[in-house]
């Protein structure tokens, strides 16, 4: 990490901490990598501190993204942990949870530790998520206790869903003993062979094979049925995209099951129409869906069913995306556009209060994945802070992105809410100049 960082005194801002419900003018002192004090404006005396004037800004806990692909080890041409977390910092994120589909896959404690080593040059805290089965082949479980000891916060075969009933049940049981969530990329791949977008009239028109809604909802329903058999089991559904699957989660939650879920900004901001003339920057999995699904995601966010906004940040090199639609890989980058989209869509268009939006990007994802002392501003917590201007409208240009890859459907979009400063464990990791 950096050489000794001067204490920081962030003054004059509107402090919003969804974990405690605080939303008021407060000054914030960060010292030795921790939150040292939160006081009424002007009350903190710290002559040794660097003063940051946050007038007209919101000061909030550093954002948490529980679903990113950092591509290391193995695919440094797409992204590295250093570039991925630089993009995170520019987007206001101080914590990211990295998916295990690296090369080699994160299925051993060695890889899990490697990803967290200081040599990676991360500017945000990286919590690895480990593979749930060996090689993500869905056949034999990995060593959950050893992976947890090494720092893994959840297990998943993201991108390669766990289809077998028995192995999924085993995974839920083994993870439950360690209080780890099992994250499922809910896609019944038996129904999606050769598919590259949402099923429907647009797919028919474009001559592309479509993934039916049932491929997602069917697997969510199956997983929920399995979860009922597991004491203390926790299922986390990644990147929900369909009204039907969201409904299944809503019902399961009402029945008392421990099911959590996340929705990506692109699934609440875009529909399949964004594909236009085969734009592969609108190709991801799960695919962009119909307008009725998009509005269902927003309803789920507004009514509290959704626990987290997660980006599924999935960088790919230009030469990979500049291919025929069926051949191009799935995924888009998302770390630098998440907050601006959340405010533009959820706050401006749907009147969602800012503190509720922030909750979905801080304390609630921290709770969902059991990330202790993250996502809040209590004294003693790591000094993870974002300062942003909630009113600033700005245009996102992918060419200026910190990510190594520029595969985003939001190039040229006007967003609202711009990050000015990001502090990770007391260190300034992003400062807009």
């Amino acid at each position: 990490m950096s050489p000794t960082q001067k204490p920081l005194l962030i003054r004059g801002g509107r402090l919003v901490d969804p974990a405690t419900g605080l939303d008021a003018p407060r000054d914030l002192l960060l010292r030795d990598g921790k939150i040292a004090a939160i006081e009424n404006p002007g009350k903190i005396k710290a002559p040794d501190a660097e003063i940051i004037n946050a007038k007209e800004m919101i000061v909030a806990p550093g954002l948490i993204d529980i679903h990113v692909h950092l591509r290391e080890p193995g695919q440094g041409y797409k992204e590295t942990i250093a570039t991925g977390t630089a993009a995170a910092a520019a987007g206001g994120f101080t914590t990211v949870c990295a998916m295990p589909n690296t090369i080699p896959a994160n299925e051993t404690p060695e890889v899990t530790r490697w990803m967290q080593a200081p040599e990676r040059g991360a500017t945000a805290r990286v919590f690895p998520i480990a593979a749930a089965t060996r090689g993500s082949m869905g056949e034999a479980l990995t060593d959950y206790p050893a992976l947890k000891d090494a720092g893994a916060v959840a297990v998943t075969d993201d991108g390669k869903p766990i289809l077998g009933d028995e192995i999924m049940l085993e995974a839920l049981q083994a993870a439950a003993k360690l209080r780890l969530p099992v994250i499922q990329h809910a896609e019944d791949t038996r129904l999606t062979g050769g598919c590259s977008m949402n099923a429907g009239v647009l797919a028919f028109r474009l001559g592309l094979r479509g993934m039916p809604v049932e491929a997602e909802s069917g697997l969510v329903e199956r997983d929920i049925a399995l979860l009922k058999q597991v004491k203390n089991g926790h299922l986390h559904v990644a990147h929900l995209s369909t009204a039907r699957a969201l409904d299944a989660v809503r019902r399961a939650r009402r029945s008392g099951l421990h099911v959590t879920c996340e929705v990506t900004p692109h699934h609440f901001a875009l529909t399949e129409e964004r594909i236009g003339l085969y734009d592969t920057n609108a190709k991801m999995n799960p695919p962009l869906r119909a307008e009725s699904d998009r509005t269902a995601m927003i309803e789920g966010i507004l009514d509290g069913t959704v626990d987290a906004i997660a980006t599924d940040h999935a960088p790919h090199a230009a030469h990979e995306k500049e291919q025929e639609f069926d051949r191009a890989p799935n995924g888009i980058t998302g770390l630098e556009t998440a907050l601006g989209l959340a405010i533009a869509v959820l706050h401006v268009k749907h009147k969602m209060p800012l503190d509720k939006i922030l909750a979905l990007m801080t304390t609630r994802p921290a709770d969902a994945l059991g990330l202790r002392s993250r996502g809040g501003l209590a004294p003693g917590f790591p000094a993870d802070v974002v300062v942003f201007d909630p009113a600033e409208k700005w245009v996102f240009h992918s060419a200026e992105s910190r990510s190594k890859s520029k595969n985003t459907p939001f190039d040229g979009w006007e967003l609202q809410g711009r990050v000015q400063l990001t502090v990770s464990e007391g260190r300034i990791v992003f400062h807009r100049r």
Partner: protein
Amino acid sequence: MTLTRATVRTPKKLSSPSFFHQPIHPHSAISANDFSVAEVRRILESADALEKDNPIKRANRLAKRRVALLFYESSTRTRTSFELAAKALGADTTLVSSLSSSIEKGESLKDTGITLKALGAECIILRSPYSGAPYLLARATGLPILNAGDGMAEHPSQALLDLRTILQFLAIRSSTVNEKSLRGVTLTICGDILHSRVARSNALLLPRLGAKVILCGPPEFLPDLAAEMTPGLVIERDFDSALRQSQIVMMLRIQAERLAGVQIDLDDYRTRYQANAERIAARAPQALIMHPGPIIRGMEITAEVADGPHSAIANQVYNGVPIRMALVARALSTVAKKRGPK
């Protein structure tokens, strides 16, 4: 340190628009929707004129211009007729196919296009197994791209030559073609519509000239939502009923190479959807019988019908050359025209 709201800055000029914002050359023919009805009329008129043209004079029209044919799938009719069309206008043509080029070594479509452009190609005629591939090639090269069939998506030159065949059958002159030309005409497209680019391009084009288009086939080959693709389409599962309403019948083969797990009982399929002499005589004895080929005799169509007096299959093939001459001439014309309304 003070954090302040950004003041208005002159936006940074980006070096170049991103790949997917690159323009498509307006003389491309990628979708049947690329042509306004007026443009369809001009293409038909141009095809008539080029067909009648003195062959020597015609061969000077595009003398020594360079046209590349890039074929990632096998083809007899489309490839030969595009090649003959370009040569009839005097252009130099070169064929690049997936089995005899660096495509085999893994060269991408984008790089292949850039290479052909560097070799002097002024227009690329592309056939690809991937839907949407022509847009990629158009963005990568900036050249006019003629779509010779992309995956399951479109085959616009086939739709235009089919239209020419239909107009000849109905004795409608090219110069009169407008939005009402096919009013009162019902055409049935029958067979594996899901996997057919010919069906899509025809279904997009013909209703815009006033035709009623009936899509016919089993649900495996024809999902209900197909009719929502564009106005003027109806679905009829009963082939006999569709035939009774139709003046024109277009049969399609089952595309074994694109079935991707679709299971179908072929005997049952023949019983329900085969164009055989008995069925045609009983339901649509005067109807024009069309088929884009290749035909699988004894499957979707019998030899008697394919070779019968009402068959237009050979006319369709014949019309390929004049229509493709018109498209190649349009692609290489120096007069820049605005792309027609969708």
